[in-house]
C-alpha cells in the first residue's frame, strides 16, 4: 500500500501538476456489473438502486488525483424513492397520452416548470454525495439560476437563430461550475465568449465541409450516368462521411468546450485545471464503444465504460500546491435524490 504523504514538506509553494487517473479494470467491473443485474432481476428491480450506487462508487473510487480517490456516498434507498416517483410520472404521462391526449400539454408545462428544479436538485445531490479526502463537494445553484441558464438563455439563442448559442452555452457552464464548491472553497470559471464562438464556428465549418465532401460524388457522377460497383462504393463512402460528421461534430464541440471551460476554471486561489481531450480520439472512443456494445448485445458495456473513464481521466489535471490539507468542509444534509433520479430517467444532460 502506498502510504507516502501527499504533501512534500520541502516545497510548499511550488505548483504541482497532478494528472487524474482511472485505475479500475474492465474485468473487475464486468463481474460487479453482471452480478448486480442478476440481483436486480431476482429482486424485481428493487436492487437496482443499490446496483447504481455500487457502480458509481466503483467509478468514483477508482478515479485518483495524487494518492487519493474520490468517493460516492448516496444512500440507495433515496435513489429508489426517486426512481419510483419518476416511474409514476412516466406512467401518468403515458396514460394521459393514451386516454386523454388533449391534456398532454399539461404534462409538458409541468415538466418545463419542474425542469430547473430537477437540474438544481440533481446537481446538488451529486455534489453533496461526492467527496475527496474526507471533504465533500457542494452546490449552491438556485431554481431561478437554472431557469435563466437552461431555459431563458436557450430561448434567446433560438430566437436569434442560434447566433447567441455560445452565450447560452457559457450561461450553462457558469451555472454548473461557479455554483460548485469543494468544502468551503468555491470553483470559479471565467470563459471568454469569443473562444466559444470560434469553437462553434469551427464545428459548423466541419459539418459543412463534410456534407459537401459527402455530396460531391453525386454531382460529379450523375453526369456520366454511373452505375454498378463504383456507384455503390461512392454512395457507401458518402453516407459514412455524413454519419461520422453528424455524430462527430457534436462530440467535437463537446470536447473543445469542455477543455475550454476546465482550462478557465480555478478552485480558490491555489488550484487550477487543465483538460486536453482530443475531439478525434473522443469521437472514435464514443463511436466504437457504441458499435461494440450493440454488436455484443451489451456484454462489452463495462469495458466501454472503463475505456472511456480511463481516457477522460488521463486528459484532466489539477495544477497547484499539492498540499490539500487546508480544505475544510461543514457537515450538511445530503440533498434530494428525487430530482436526480427524475432527471436521469428523462435523460436531461447538464453539459459536463
Amino acid at each position, binding site marked *: *500500500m502506498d*502510504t507516502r*504523504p*501527499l504533501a512534500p514538506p520541502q516545497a510548499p509553494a511550488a505548483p504541482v501538476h497532478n494528472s487524474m487517473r482511472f485505475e*479500475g479494470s474492465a474485468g*473487475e*467491473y*464486468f*463481474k*460487479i456489473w*453482471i*452480478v*448486480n*443485474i*442478476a440481483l*436486480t*432481476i431476482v429482486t424485481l*428491480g428493487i436492487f*437496482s*438502486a443499490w446496483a*447504481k450506487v*455500487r457502480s458509481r*462508487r*466503483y467509478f468514483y*473510487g*477508482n478515479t485518483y488525483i495524487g494518492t*487519493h*480517490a474520490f*468517493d460516492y456516498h448516496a444512500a440507495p434507498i433515496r435513489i429508489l424513492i426517486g*426512481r419510483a416517483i419518476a*416511474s409514476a410520472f*412516466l406512467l401518468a404521462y*403515458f396514460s394521459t397520452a*393514451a*386516454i*386523454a*391526449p388533449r391534456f398532454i400539454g399539461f404534462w409538458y408545462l409541468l415538466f418545463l416548470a419542474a425542469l430547473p428544479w430537477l437540474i438544481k436538485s440533481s446537481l446538488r445531490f451529486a455534489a453533496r454525495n461526492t467527496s*475527496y*479526502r*474526507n*471533504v465533500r463537494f457542494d452546490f449552491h445553484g438556485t431554481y431561478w439560476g437554472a431557469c435563466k441558464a437552461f431555459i431563458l438563455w436557450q430561448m434567446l439563442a433560438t430566437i436569434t437563430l442560434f447566433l447567441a448559442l455560445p452565450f447560452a452555452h457559457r450561461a450553462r457552464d457558469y451555472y454548473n461550475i461557479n455554483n460548485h464548491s469543494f*468544502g468551503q472553497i468555491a470553483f470559479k470559471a471565467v470563459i471568454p465568449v469569443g473562444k466559444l464562438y470560434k469553437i462553434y464556428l469551427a464545428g459548423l465549418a466541419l459539418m459543412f465541409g463534410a456534407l459537401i465532401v459527402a455530396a460531391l460524388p453525386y454531382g460529379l457522377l450523375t453526369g456520366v450516368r454511373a452505375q454498378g460497383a463504383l456507384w455503390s462504393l461512392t454512395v457507401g463512402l458518402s453516407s459514412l462521411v455524413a454519419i461520422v460528421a453528424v455524430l462527430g461534430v457534436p462530440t467535437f464541440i463537446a470536447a473543445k468546450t469542455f477543455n475550454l471551460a476546465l482550462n478557465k476554471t480555478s478552485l480558490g486561489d491555489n488550484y487550477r485545471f487543465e483538460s486536453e481531450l482530443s475531439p478525434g480520439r473522443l469521437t472514435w472512443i464514443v463511436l466504437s464503444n*457504441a458499435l461494440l*456494445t*450493440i454488436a455484443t448485445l*451489451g*456484454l462489452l458495456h463495462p469495458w466501454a465504460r472503463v475505456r472511456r473513464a480511463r481516457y477522460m481521466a488521463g486528459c484532466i489535471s489539477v495544477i497547484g500546491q499539492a498540499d*490539500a*490539507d*487546508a*480544505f*475544510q*468542509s*461543514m*457537515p450538511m444534509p445530503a440533498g434530494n435524490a428525487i430530482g436526480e*433520479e427524475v432527471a*436521469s*430517467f*428523462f*435523460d436531461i444532460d447538464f453539459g459536463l
Partner: protein
Amino acid sequence: MPLSGFYFPPGSARQTEAILHLTDDGEYLEVRDGGGAILARAPRPQILVTSRLGGLRRKLEFPDGALFETADNDGVDALVKDHSGALARLERSWRLAAMSLLAIAACTVLFILYGVPAIAAWLAEETPPSVARAMTDHTLKVMDTQLLGPTALPSARQQQVRNRFETIAGWEDRGAGRYTLLLRNAPHVGPNAFALPDGRIVVTDQLVLMAKSDAELDGVLAHEMAHVNHAHGLRSVYQASLVPAAIAFVTGDASQFAQMTVILPAILLQSAYSRKFEQQADDDAAALQRRHGEDPAALAGFLERMELKTCGKAGCAPSWLGSHPATAARAARLRRAPAP
C-alpha cells in the same frame, strides 16, 4: 492485528499516517498516530464502514466525522464482521459472473416468451371499457382525418355487408352487442380491415370490392371479431411498452441511447407477437366458419388475391419482419383447418 492507513480529522482534508486497532476488551476501535497518541476512538457499532467493493479502499467514519482510510480490505472485514463482504465475494467470482450471465439470458428469454404476453393479457383484462373507448375514439379520429373517408359504397351493398356482419356477430358466443361495424373509403390504405380496442371494426371499401363471395367477407369479419374477443388491440399496446419499460426499470436509464439500442429488437419482437395474434385470429375464424357450414378456404383464396394485388408476383416482405405471417403459410393453415 492493527491496520495501517490514513487518518483525517472531522471535515478536514489534512491527512496523517495512522494505524487502526481493536482495544483489548473488543469494544472500541482506536486510531493512533506513529507516536502512539490516540486520534479517534469510538464503540465499534457506532462506526460507519463502507461496504467492500472491488479493490477500493475502505473508509471508517467515526461519529464525530473523523475518517480512517485503508487498503487492507481483509483486515477491515476481520475487524468489523459486517455483511457487505458476502456481496463483494459474489462480485469477485468469474464462475458466478458466468452463472449470472446465463441466468439473465434465461430470464430475458422467459420474460419475452411468457412474461410479456401474460402481463399484457392481464392488463388488457383489467382495462376499464371506458379507457378502451377513449383510446379507440382517439385512434379513429386521427385515422379519419388522415387516411379514411366516409364510405362510397352503394347503400344496397353497405346493407349486404352489415347483414353479413350481424350474422357472424350472432354466431359469436359473447353476443352481437360487442362489435360495431364501420365502413370507410381508404384509397391510400387499400383493401384492409382492423379491429380497434373497444370492439369497433373498420372495413375499407377497397376490401369489400375485392371480396367475390359472402364466405370470403365472412372470413375477414370473423378474423377481426376474433381480434376483439382476445383484446389483441390492447394487448399489442401493452406489449409494445413493456419491453422498454422493463429495460428502463432494470438499468434506471430511459435515455435516448438505451432506446436506440433496444429499438430494433423491440420492433422485431413486436412483429413476432403480432404474427402470433394473426394466427390465433385465423384459427378462431376458421373454426367459427366450419361450425356454421362455411369453408375457411374462401378466406385463404382471398388472402392470396390480396397479396398478389399489394405486393405483386414476388410476394411481400419475409415473414420474420412482417406483422403478419407469410400469406402462403396462412392460406395453407386455413385450408387445413379441422372440421368441427
